[in-house]
């Protein structure tokens, strides 16, 4: 220890360490700066320009047009606004269903595989495996499973049900439910009022049947990752607490509700935050599976930003969508952050989970685990 302190006072060695330190950091700083910071600045410029993809965005093909692109998306009625409104609605329902379901399923799986049972390792592996496969392979698999004459519909036919055409079915889930109760499908006066280019009635459509396939897929692929996070949390609970409760005659459910859930609250918040961040970034699945069809009911802001820029050549609008999406994600991160900062302090390591390698829950899993 004394040697450390002595060296701190020696300018020669400190100078040497400073040089080495910056040299070690240099590649990371250059690459992050060049491919993260700089591009954000460029995109910020493009989002307030009329650049159409020809030449350089800093050349004479791009002109400052202020917030025109943002207005096109948020206030000016038209195709851009309509697409954006639809994408927001679709993704909103996706988030609304995926986040709670995947959290509950992951916790349920974790509780099951946390028991001291034989072959429990096999089950952990089985539940986690979908998480390591690529979104491309999984999407191909799900388009097959949910094809009109596919596996799911075959299974449904065994119980006498006729499945929908899934990825080809644009009907909203809530609309379908309302129909069961005899609600007029024209939407009445709700169809005449618009928000972000989408009628109130269409805002109430719920996720389309097609989007439900992606919802099920998301739960299938991410529940294993979050199961591991929960498992780590569960194993941090001292056995003696549960034993004491059992001696007091607490039922399994009571133990779960009043001991397990409060003890793993930090993990629950982490999982919800990572879920919120990840679910607002649906891109691969849509690109591979539907490209937004049927009738735009699987469009998401992330895919729309890409499509608007790369296919429609409206780069300014695409970049503006990306920035609004960024804002949405930051908003939800901050909200859950504020909620997480509650009485009991979160362990230091875990605290970085939510900030973590956003969009890739797999990374943060290991991060939480990093020895």
């Amino acid at each position, binding site marked *: 220890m004394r040697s450390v302190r002595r060296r701190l006072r020696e300018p020669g060695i*400190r100078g*040497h360490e*400073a040089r*080495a*330190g*910056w040299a*070690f*950091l240099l590649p*990371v700083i250059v*690459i992050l700066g*060049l*491919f993260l910071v*700089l*591009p954000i600045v460029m995109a910020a410029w*493009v989002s307030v320009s009329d650049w159409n993809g020809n030449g350089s*965005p800093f050349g004479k093909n791009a002109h400052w047009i202020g917030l025109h692109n943002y207005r096109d998306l948020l206030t000016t009625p038209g195709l851009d606004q309509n697409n954006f409104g639809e994408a927001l609605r679709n993704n909103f329902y996706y988030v609304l269903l995926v986040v709670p379901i995947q959290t509950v399923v992951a916790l349920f799986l974790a509780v099951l*595989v946390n*028991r001291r049972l034989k072959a429990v390792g*096999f089950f*952990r592996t*089985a*539940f986690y*495996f979908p998480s390591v*496969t690529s979104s*491309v392979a999984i999407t*191909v*698999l799900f*388009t*097959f499973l949910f094809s009109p004459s596919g*596996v799911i*519909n075959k299974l449904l036919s065994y119980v006498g049900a006729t499945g929908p055409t899934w*990825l080809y079915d644009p009907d909203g889930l809530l609309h379908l439910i309302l129909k069961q109760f005899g609600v007029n499908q024209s939407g009445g006066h709700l169809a005449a009022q618009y928000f972000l280019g989408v009628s109130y009635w269409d805002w109430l459509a719920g996720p389309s049947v097609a989007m439900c396939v992606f919802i099920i897929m998301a739960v*299938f692929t991410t529940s294993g990752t979050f199961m*591991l996070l929960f*498992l780590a949390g569960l*194993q941090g609970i001292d056995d003696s607490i549960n034993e004491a409760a*059992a001696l007091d005659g607490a039922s399994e459910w009571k133990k779960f509700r009043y001991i397990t859930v409060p003890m793993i609250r930090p993990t629950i918040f982490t999982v919800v935050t990572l879920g919120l961040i990840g679910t607002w*970034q649906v*891109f*691969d699945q849509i*690109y591979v*599976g539907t*490209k937004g*069809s049927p009738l735009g009911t699987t469009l998401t802001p992330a895919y729309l930003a*890409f499509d608007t820029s790369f296919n429609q050549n409206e780069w300014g609008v695409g970049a503006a969508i*990306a920035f609004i*999406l*960024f804002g949405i994600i930051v908003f939800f991160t901050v909200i859950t952050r504020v909620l997480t900062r509650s009485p009991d302090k979160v362990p230091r390591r875990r605290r*970085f989970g939510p*900030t973590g*390698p*956003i969009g*890739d829950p797999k990374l*943060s899993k*290991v*991060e*939480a*685990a*990093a*020895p």
Partner: protein
Amino acid sequence: MSVAAMRSDASATRRRRVSNTLTYGFLAVLAIVYIFPFVIAIITSFKTEPDATANALSLVPHPGTTIAFHQLTADNDFFTWVKNSVIVTLSVTFLRVFLDSLAGYALARLRFRGRGAAFATIVAVMAVPGVVLLIPKFLIIRQLGIYDTYYGMIVPLLVDAAGVFIMKNFFESIPVSVEESARIDGAKTFRIFWSIVLPMARPALITLFILSFQGSWNELGHFIISAQSASLNTLTKGVAQLASGQLGSGNRYPLKLAASTLMTIPVAVLFFVFQRRIMNASEGAVKE
């Protein structure tokens, strides 16, 4: 031990047995739900297209055929995709592990002015969602003149803030004494890092290796925006084009599923080889 206590013990045992049976029942059903899709995918890739369409659920291909694999390797530049995926994944993985550990070591061990600020910046950068960056990254890649080259596909993926973070955490957890004595012997910083510290960091390096490999092998978005030539298609991009081409016409499910199955093999192998590490990673030092 009193009689009453023994009796309650016995009933507790009985209750546990019942609950264990229930748990196994649940687990078995769930395991089928999680595994079956992959099993049916593999089986279907050995079916003919009419068979796959008419009997999606049948577990025996009738007739069994490897025609999908032949088609895949004959018409679809499949080997180009494999080659590109291998080149990109290996370059990204090895360089990323190296660069991330360099930076992690500097942040954990070397004392210099600005270290705190550098670390804070890296953490902030981690918070930027990847999908939001697709358009910005395309702009810079084009501006730098590396669009549609391996450089454009590889270099932006070389560093990830999360990896730096993992390595920094790890280096902080190992005792400083070994490096101290090496330093007293006058070893240069890089030598200490390379021949003393890095070998001790094996567990973290393997973790990072797995993450980087899996991440770059499965990456799609970045390759879409960084290249357009068919000759630079990776497996993800190639299979995605194969899959999204025809949602309406002939479904070609055996072909697509054969491609998906093949592209999953490397990550699956990696997963099963390092399974214990991956699964136990988040459990810390847990007995069992």
